[in-house]
């Protein structure tokens, strides 16, 4: 009973923490917002965390997170939810700190800031899950097929600066934003396995593994935060339209690359491994060293990284974001829709609908905004956001897109949140 209470308590703490760190519309504050007076200096802090999956539910993920023993029942439940060929699981964390700088001319402003990004994503099929969590025994005398497996792990930081040019026409405000940035590559690891099979002979006399592998990784000597294992450049462009009832925004963010340095490793392999046991030449020489050392060499060598090093260039996740909001009933209600996609990742196009109730107070507007989304790393999610804009000088927003996953973890997935704080100086 005590253990159950502890479990529930930990779960509540996790939900509360994530709800206060929450999630969603999130984009860096390099673009002007309707809630802040951009003619003054302002400082913004934004953080977004997202873990989601189209098939792995929160219950299984939480059991994993909390270090619980994953029994057959839990694994089977998770397995039964999976697609045969396409399952996605991803984690993203972005945080940025920006300074908005008014220009000498009223229609010009500048920005400068720092961003950090972490990305981890995995695409897998049901056989992979079966192999990983159940082993190969159930696939004896069958082909276990691994198709379109992909694992990406990326950490990088950016320093950015740019300019906003604004003009007004027919009671509408138009803003063009352009900026450039320097990318610091902290770490990268990519595994892509377009196709592979594992066959275990009926009496386990041999295992035949056939795989195409595409692997890349940065220098592993040091991969702590801020380590420069690669560098590159990026650019951002955006257009914003705003009038009394409409807000429209279109962004292309992080058009850029990282050149990973010469101690990185990168190669492709089309490998076949036939393993029928460790060959013991002499029965009186069955030492542990023989077994652990020589024995597994053929498999290890088949999948190990090459010892040769070479630099390579990789695009960073390029974000394409389109947002439209329409106000109704004298701004008391609004309805927004967005399209969000990260190119060069496994992220799928995401569509989000955000109706909002905007409550005007004396010098502030409080908004309560439920959200409904599909795409990204997940399937369907709904969430809730609360924001407050006070006298065009202070803005805060807390949001999560995953209320359904918290409330029904056995059938839904998604953990995360978005927080944004902007203050004029």
């Amino acid at each position, binding site marked *: 009973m005590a253990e159950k209470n502890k479990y529930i308590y930990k779960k509540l703490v996790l939900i509360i923490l994530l709800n206060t760190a929450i999630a969603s519309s999130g984009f860096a504050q390099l673009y002007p917002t309707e809630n802040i007076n951009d003619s003054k200096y302002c400082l913004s802090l934004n953080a977004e965390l997202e*873990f989601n999956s189209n098939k*792995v539910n929160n219950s299984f*993920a939480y*059991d*994993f*997170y*909390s*270090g*619980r*023993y*994953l*029994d*057959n029942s839990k*694994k089977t439940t998770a397995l039964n939810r999976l697609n045969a060929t396409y399952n996605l*699981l*991803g*984690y993203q964390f972005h945080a940025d700190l920006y300074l908005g700088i008014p220009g000498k001319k009223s229609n010009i402003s500048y920005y400068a800031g720092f961003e950090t990004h*972490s990305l*981890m*994503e*995995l695409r*897998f099929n049901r056989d992979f*899950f079966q192999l*990983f*969590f*159940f*082993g*190969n*025994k*159930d696939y*004896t005398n069958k082909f276990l097929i691994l198709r379109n497996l992909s*694992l990406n*792990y990326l950490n990088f930081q950016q320093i950015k600066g740019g300019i906003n040019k604004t003009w007004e026409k027919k009671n509408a405000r138009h803003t063009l934003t352009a900026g450039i940035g320097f990318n610091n590559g902290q770490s990268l690891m990519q595994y892509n396995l377009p196709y592979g099979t594992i066959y*275990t002979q009926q*009496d*386990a*006399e*041999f*295992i035949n593994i056939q795989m195409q592998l595409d692997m890349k990784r940065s220098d592993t000597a040091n991969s702590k935060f801020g380590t420069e294992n690669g560098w590159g450049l990026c650019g951002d462009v955006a257009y914003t339209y705003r009038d009394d009832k409409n807000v429209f925004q279109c962004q292309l963010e992080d058009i850029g690359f990282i050149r990973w340095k010469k101690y990185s490793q990168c190669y492709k392999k089309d490998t076949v491994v036939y*393993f*029928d*046991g*460790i*060959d*013991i*030449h*002499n*029965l*009186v*020489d*069955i*030492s*542990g*060293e023989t*077994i*652990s050392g020589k024995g597994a060499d053929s498999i290890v060598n088949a999948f190990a990284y090459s010892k040769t090093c070479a630099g390579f260039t990789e695009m960073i996740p390029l974000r394409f974001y389109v947002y439209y909001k329409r106000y109704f009933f004298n701004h008391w209600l609004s309805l927004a829709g967005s399209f969000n996609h990260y190119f060069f990742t496994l992220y799928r196009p995401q569509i989000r609908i955000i109706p909002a109730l905007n409550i005007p107070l004396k010098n502030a507007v409080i908004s309560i905004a439920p959200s409904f989304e599909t795409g990204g790393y997940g399937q369907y999610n709904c969430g809730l956001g609360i924001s407050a804009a006070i006298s065009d000088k202070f803005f805060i927003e807390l949001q999560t897109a995953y209320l359904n996953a918290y409330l029904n973890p056995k059938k839904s997935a998604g*953990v995360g949140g978005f927080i944004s704080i902007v203050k004029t100086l």
Partner: protein
Amino acid sequence: MVLCLNLFSCRKVDPSWDVNINAPLLKTTMDLDNILPDSLINTNNDHSLSLVYSYSFYNFSFDSLIDMPDTLSSRYLPPVNGYTVNPGQVFYNLTENNHLSFQGAQISGVDFHSGYITLEVFSSITEPIVVTYELPYATRDGIPFKVTVTVPASTPGTIQHYQNFFDISGYSLDMRGPTHLNSNILTSTTKAMLDPSGNGYTLDSSDVFRFNIRFKDISLQYAKGYFGNNSFAFGPDTTPIDIFNKITSGAFDFESIKLNLNVKNGFGVDARVMFDQISSINTATGHHVALNDPIIGQAINISRAVETGDHANPVTPSEYSFNLGNSNILDLIENVPDMISYKVHVDCNPLGNISSGNDFIYYGNYLDASLDMEIPLSLIANDLTLTDTVDFDLGDNPNTIKSGTLTLLADNGFPFSAKIQLYMLDENRQITDSLLFPDMIAAPDINAFYKVVHPKRSVLQIPLPEEKIPRLYEMKKMLLVARFNTAGAGHYVKIYDYYKLSLKLTGDFNYLIQM
């Protein structure tokens, strides 16, 4: 996915789950080469195999024939009173022709293969002394052996003890003396003088000056002379035989055995050899079987070896072979001996000095006796039990294998059935547990000629319940016990060079993954 989940959170506790792994573990193919060294196996024309084994049980070595004396010279300075020795003055100078004793042998010369001359000096003289020792007839590359050493000054009232070793390997020593007509003569010169750079010294009657010169660790490359008419008796003595040392019980019956007793004389000495007794001993059963053959008790005259003049291969030994095929040698072998007992008499130069002092010996060429066996592997095995202990170390127990089943897939091409048992041993070779195969590796079918038609597959399983797993990791050695019975219903079956036993060990494990 796990990596994703891992980074996603700052977990304090690692998740875990079971997987069921079914995989090949070990494989081996055994033919007779894997069991016996290649050098012991001979393939006959019909591809049947024979065991060829040469076993040297007696070796009459160099030292037995010529025993080099240790002491070359031991002298002292007679007491002198009031005689003053100046720096650089020789006060002791002795050339001597020592007659060394070689137990009746008359040695005219030797070459040293290795060894040292030890020079030991005791002195009460309080000035440094330069000592020179020379063997004028011991030369290497034409240069005589000569050493000069400085013995440090002693302090008043004490005796300085000085000792040094000088390598004598490669020297040839002419022992015929100054006239070159004698034998066993060692000519040497010893000199002592006060260090020229020191002070003078006045001897008195209490002064001590003594030296000892000895051979140390001498091994001869060559010796020449008349080695005497000596008799040597050896034994009863035993020497181990290891060919059957893995057989711990059961019986085998060979269809036939060819066995020769070989005597090889590498000495330049005539000899008469007599084997009084040869027996096989099984120390486990205590069973002795004596060889019953006319050769026992019979004097065998062995002629001397011949010098070839070839430096690399200087001797052609004389060899004698005696067929023991009509003896009870089968009984000796089927006793499964681990020791051979023998008693031998050797008479050197039984006819006297017929070589006129030209007996010789060369390093590495001795008189030895061996048994050369050729055993056609046509046999009947009855519960023949081979036991061996092998090192086995799986490392530390990571608590990951929870339980499982080991499966041995055996494709047996030998005309045997085999029952295999494995015992786990700790570091003290104490049995801690066992892995017993409930079934046996079955013998394949054989045809009317008692040949294996096709290998036969046997599938043997050993359950590994959870309680055995820790002991598997604790195991440091494994005792392998294999019990064999030949197919053929009491008929001899031959072993052919193409017979093989293929073994594959697979594991079906319930494995705990801990991240």
